[in-house]
Each structure stands twice: as C-alpha cells, then as structure tokens.
C-alpha cells in the first residue's frame, strides 16, 4: 500500500490530498496541529485548524485564509479523509488523522497524555502509522503528578509571600502559563502577567476558556503596588532587568527540563518545577501502544535512542527530520 504521508523539506506532505501538515516553508495548503510558532507558521496559502486553535493563530499570524473544523469532523480533501482529534498539548491542539483508501496515518504534533484541567484530554486514535514527537523520549523523564506539582508551586509562592518576596515564574505564553494559572491557589495573592502571556490569556478568554483574574504588568507595577504577587513571565523575560522592578524575589522555571538537576542549576533560577505540555517517557510509550500502529515515525527530540527503543519493542520505527523543536530552554525559541 502506498504511503499516506511523505516527508519533504517543506513539511509532512499528503500526495492524495495535496496538502501539508505543520509545514515550515510556504505551501498552498497547510493543516495545523496547534498554535505554537514552530508548528503554525506564516505565509501559507490556506490554513485548516481546529475551532480552538483558530483564535490564537489569528492573533499570531494576522490576516490569514483560515478554515476551521470541530474535533472528530471529517473533511474530504482530494482522496484523503482528514479529521482532527484532541492532543492534550494546549487548548485546541490536535492530532491529525489522514485516511486514504483504508490506510490510516496520524500526525500527533505535540501531545501529552495526562489531563491538565485546561486542554481537551488526549484521545488515542487507532492507525497504521503514527508520527510522534519524542522531546522527552528517555526514561529519565517522569512528570510530577499534577496534585503534587500544584502543592509545590503554592507552597513556594506562599513562603515567598510570607517573606516579602515576589514569586516570578517562567512559562510558555501559550498553554503552560494558562495551565499554571488554573492550578495555583489565587487566594495567596495577586497574579501579575507579562504582556506576551496576557495577550494569549485574552485570546483564550474570548473563546470561552475560564481563567482566574490576572493583572497585566505595566510600567507602574512594582512589588509595592502588589505585595506577595505571583508574576507569570515568559522564559526570556527571566534574568533580564525587567524582573528587577519586583524587588526581592524568587525565580522559578516550569519546564520538563527541570527534571534534570544540571539544567535546573544552569538556569540560575531559584526553583525548577517539573511540568511539561509534552508526554513523558511513560506517556509516549502508552500513547504509541494505544494507537495499535506498527509503523512509527519519530520527529523531534531524542530520536536516535527512541527509534532504537521502539525497534527493540517490535515496532517498524523510523526517524524523520523536521524543523520542530518541542520544548526548549533557548531564549529565542522558548516563548512559543
């Protein structure tokens, strides 16, 4: 049977429907899994994405030719039947299922299998071939359970507030920031937000997602106007002079990379909370198994080891090279 999808230097391509999924170079027709900047890029002729992803794409990409779809709804494009299914990564994020003549391939984009209370929970989609990320595809990555994580963050914030310190927490503007917002205990103090995060908050609120009250940081905002505050900032804002206005403070990063002590220490933040919008080792393995697929294509992350591991588990596993970068700590890429 012919391959439903092929891997080109523009992105993942479907010959039967003449479209691309999350392409990184301009193409006529692009299907988008979610709104992060390495997946939803500008300058495509036409876009197709979920209803939940559309507002963020419009916000980030401006005026685009965008058609939207609900989860599970089938769109026929050429000879390909296409549908979007929750990926649990960020609100609106999807795996894209492509069926051609009974052969089913699924592009998972970025995903996580545990429910975060905000994104539509990941849904296993049976398929013949599964295209997966493996940003955290090593057995050293095991995420802290959600309730323990929330307790850790709240305890940190409360202790800082009691000691007269501002708590500055670095997190991605789309997804992680809102996920943290919905889990922290807003009774501890005011929640301030960096501009990039607040913009995304507004987009999500406008589409009906409930978030606690947040106060955008203005030039007048200081630790004196808002004592004991939790400041949500983009990773690149941490460690800059911007944080000085909050007086004595404790800084923290929320990232899957914080599972590693070396990385945690290199960031020179006071704390690292292990939280990610990607699947951990267990999550990746469970998700792949649940698809029932035999052919697996690993895109970004620890592809070499992950491919070998999957091969040893009996899968027909391959590595494909893409321009996605998953969860990164590099300042220039980290604000996605």
């Amino acid at each position: 049977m012919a391959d439903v999808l092929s891997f080109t230097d523009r992105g993942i391509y479907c010959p039967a429907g003449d479209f691309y999924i999350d392409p990184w170079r301009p193409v006529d027709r692009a299907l988008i899994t979610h709104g992060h900047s390495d997946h939803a890029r500008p300058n495509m002729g036409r876009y197709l994405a979920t209803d939940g992803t559309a507002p963020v794409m419009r916000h980030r990409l401006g005026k685009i030719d965008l058609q939207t779809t609900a989860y599970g709804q089938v769109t026929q494009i050429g000879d390909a039947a296409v549908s979007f299914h929750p990926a649990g990564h960020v609100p609106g994020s999807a795996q894209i299922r492509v069926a051609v003549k009974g052969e089913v391939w699924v592009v998972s984009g970025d995903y996580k299998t545990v429910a975060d209370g905000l994104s539509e929970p990941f849904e296993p989609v049976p398929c013949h071939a599964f295209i997966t990320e493996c940003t955290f595809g090593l057995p050293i990555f095991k995420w802290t359970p959600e309730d323990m994580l929330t307790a850790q963050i709240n305890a940190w914030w409360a202790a800082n507030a009691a000691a007269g310190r501002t708590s500055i927490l670095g997190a991605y503007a789309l997804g992680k920031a809102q996920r943290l917002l919905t889990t922290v205990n807003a009774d501890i103090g005011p929640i301030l937000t960096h501009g990039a995060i607040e913009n995304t908050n507004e987009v999500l609120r406008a589409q009906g997602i409930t978030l606690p009250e947040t106060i955008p940081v203005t030039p007048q905002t200081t630790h004196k106007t808002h004592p004991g505050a939790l400041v949500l900032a983009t990773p690149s804002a941490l460690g800059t002079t911007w944080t000085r206005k909050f007086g004595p403070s404790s800084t923290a990063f929320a990232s899957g990379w914080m599972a590693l002590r070396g990385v945690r220490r290199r960031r020179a933040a006071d704390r690292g909370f292990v939280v990610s919008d990607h699947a951990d080792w267990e999550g990746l393995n469970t998700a792949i198994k649940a698809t029932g697929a035999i052919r697996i294509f690993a895109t970004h992350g620890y592809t070499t080891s992950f491919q070998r591991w999957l091969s040893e588990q009996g899968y027909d596993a391959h590595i494909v090279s893409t321009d996605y970068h998953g969860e990164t700590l590099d300042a220039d890429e980290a604000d996605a």
Partner: protein
Amino acid sequence: MKDFAALFTRIDESTKTTVKTAALADYFQTATPEDRLWTIALFTGRRPKRTITATRLREWAAEVAGLPDWLFEESYSIVGDLAETIALVLPPATESENQTLTHWISFIKSLSVLEDDSRKAGILKAWDSLPSTERFLFTKLLTGGFRIGVSAKLITRALAQATGQEEATLTHKLMGNWTPDTTTWDALIEADDPTADLSRPYPFYLAYGLDGFDDLGPPADWSAERKWDGIRGQLIVRGGDHHLWSRGEDLMTDRFPELAQLQDYLPDGTVLDGEVLAFRDETPLSFNALQRRIGRKTVPKKVLTEAPVILMAYDLLEHLGNDIRDWPLHKRRETLAALVQDVPSAAPLRLSATVPFRTWDDLSAARDQSRDLNAEGLMLKRRDSPYLSGRKRGDWWKWKIDPLTIDAVMIYAQAGHGRRANLFTDYTFAVRNGNDLVPFTKAYSGLTDAEFREITTWVRKNTLQRFGPVRQVPPTHVFEIAFEGIQASPRHKSGVALRFPRMLRWRKDKPVDEANTLDDLKELLATFG
C-alpha cells in the same frame, strides 16, 4: 536521612550564599553530632570508601527499571551524573524508612564484607525504601563523589555561625587527614587545640591575579619572587616525622620520598610553604618532567633519577613549634633563610630567591624572563604581610606570563556533563595542514553560557555525522586556544600535547583559512617544548 535531604534541597534550590550558609548553620545546630561530622566530611571531600563498583550499580538499576543497558547509558550521558540517572529511572519507592545519614553510611561500609548477591539485595531494598531526593543522595554516597555546590569556605562560615568560633580557627581545624572514623564532633570542632593532630597542615594562603599597579603603593613595600611551575606543597616536620600536603589537601608524602631526609636537617616544629619542583644542576626542569611523577603512589628508581625533586621554599608558617603566621613576611623569610642555610646543599631544599627591583618596569622586564627559567611568572608579596588563609585580596598577587595561543578550527562537538548536560561544551580543534585539518587538542572552558548556547543551537542544525555522543560539524568556527605549555607526544596525530588548553576567544572575525597551521604548531613546540 530526611533532615540531610532537606538540607540538600535547601542548598540545591538556592543560588544565594546566605541561604546556603543559613541552611547549613541550622543543620549544624539540630542534627546528631555523628551526622554533623559526616556532613562536614562529605562536603570537604572525605567520602566513605567505595564498596560497590559503578558498573554493578548501573546493571542493577537498569534491571530494576526494565531498561536495556544501552538506554541506561544513553540516559546517563544526558543526565551527566550516575546517581541522579539511577534515582530518575528507578520506579517509585514502595516503602519508607527514616534512618540517619550515619546509618546509611555504616550500611554502605558494611557492604564491603558481603557477597555480591547480598550487596545487591541490600541496595535494591534501600532504593525501594527511599523517596527520590534521599535515593539520589544515598546513591551519590554509593558512587563516592559528593560535589554538590558547597565549598569548604561555606562549611566553615556555617560552622562559625553555628558555634560562634572564628572562621580562620575552624578552617585550620578542618585541615588534615581526619575522617569521621578517627575523630568526633567534639574532638574536631569543640576542642581548643588545632595542633593536637601532628600531621595537620595550615590553610594555604592563595593569591589573586594582579590587575594593575595603581593600588599597590610604593614598590619598596613589596617583595617579588618567581612563580615556580611545580606543585604547591606544605612540608610539616613535627614529632620526628614529616608530612607533605598539596594545596588540594592531598597527602603527597610517599610520592616524593627524597624529601624525607629534610626531617633530619630541620628542627622539630617546622612548617614550610613552597613548591615541589623537578630540579637538576641548580635549575628547575619544566613541568613536563614533574608530570611523570604526579598520580604515582610509588616511585620507581628510574623516575627518581630522571626527575629528582626539591622543595623550593618561600614561606615559614611554624617555627620551633610556634605558629608564626602573623609575623610580617620579611621576618618570616629571614628566619626561613637561616633555616635553609643550615641544611646541606646536597639535601633537596632551596630558598626561593627574591627578585630585586626598584620600579615596576624593572619587574616587568624580570617577568619577561620567566619562560627561560621555567617559571610561570612572578609573585608579588607585601613585605609586612601576615600569612592569611584562603584566597584573599590585597597582600599577595600573582603576575603570570601570558599563555601561548593558537587559532584553531572546531571540528567535533560533544555534550557536557552535569550542569552542562544538554549543551555542547566539549570541542575538538584542528589546525590546517595543506587542505587537511589535523586535530590537536580538546577544550571545554573559557566561553560564556550564552556562547555555549549559541554554539549548541548551531551544532544541532549543522551535524554532519554522529559517532556516539560526538558530532562532526563543518569546519566553520575559529577559536583562539590558550595553553600553558606544549610538548611532543607520539600518541597524538598532530605530534603535540598541550597543557591546560582552553578557549580564550571565539574568533567570529576569522575565516577558517586564516586559522593557524600544523607548521605554526610545530614552531611553538620547537620554541617552547
């Protein structure tokens, strides 16, 4: 172990010295005396003996976690720390025990007399009963190393806070070859007399690099000596015996047996600070000669004849059993000179001569002769300075010669370990030879974190080929490599080996075809080798 884990977490979570010190001081007031003593020991490099090999630990951890060996190794190369890797891959503990730090250390010691099966059973049970931080620390103890960002200085500061004693006194008390098996908290910390242990050295006084003459005052206040290129050593003659300590608090007595005769010539109660140097015909040999003796526990005759050593003494810390560190330098040196005078010249002891000068320009000229004398530069010491402990500004300065440098091309990159896991920080460099590139050195340090991040991003996008953890990259970036010495080496393709190579600068302005050549490197070898 819960309180020790809590201490570790408080220290590890903070980048602020005050917070770390406070955490330690709290601990020194609340933990059991045995645990306190072990904590000091661990943080000053006195770890329990290894009773289990790292290979066994890896095998067992991979087995319990259900991982193939290669995947465990792959994980280890990313994490960069064996104990941390083990703690991360193991399934969560199913039981919980709260024993003291001292209990776990005794447990580790007890493994030495057991059969492999019983060791394994014991360790697996321990892993299954310790929550993650404690499991990491326990495994860290098993693997030996215990570097977790606490310096000896921090320990003494915290002890000073906890006990109300002077930092300098405590630093002195913590020196020497004690272990928690040979002493107690009371004897080590609470007792008054730091010289009770006859082998105990004084803390070394360390100099900062000179950053100008402006604040030094008149040249006449200063005395200069050569900065010898050997191994700093403190020779102790007490109670009819002698000990030689390195700056890193290693006992080197047996490595340099020729110094033993000095105990016959020096009065009892003498402590000298100086440099162990390979030395022949009244001339220091290059560091390369001495290098053959470093790391050897015993010294064969051949090496003794080929690279005989002396102690080039430059300071006297104890005279006739009295601590004279607060005497002014000139007085200590006069006394030292008199002592050396009385030692026959066949014995391996010399006085490091002062370098006469009237102006800073004179001194600069003297510094230019350093390489010819196999010296690393000059030491500048205030004539009336006391002998302080640790690295202090103001009275002692080192004025090193500039390193040798060469512009080289980066051809391979490898990720670092620990704090640098996930960053490409270890590079292989080549010089040009016609159209070829000949690798000649590796270097790991000298760049900023931002530069390392920039190169890491570039390496990820420009990998030509992978050899395990090593990535081959296109020859694009030129770096100025600095090094302290060069010697011929038949083991290396390039025919040279460098001493202490590091990256001085990233030469973004230089294209590859302007990097240095193998001939340039050989010329350096001919001149400085």
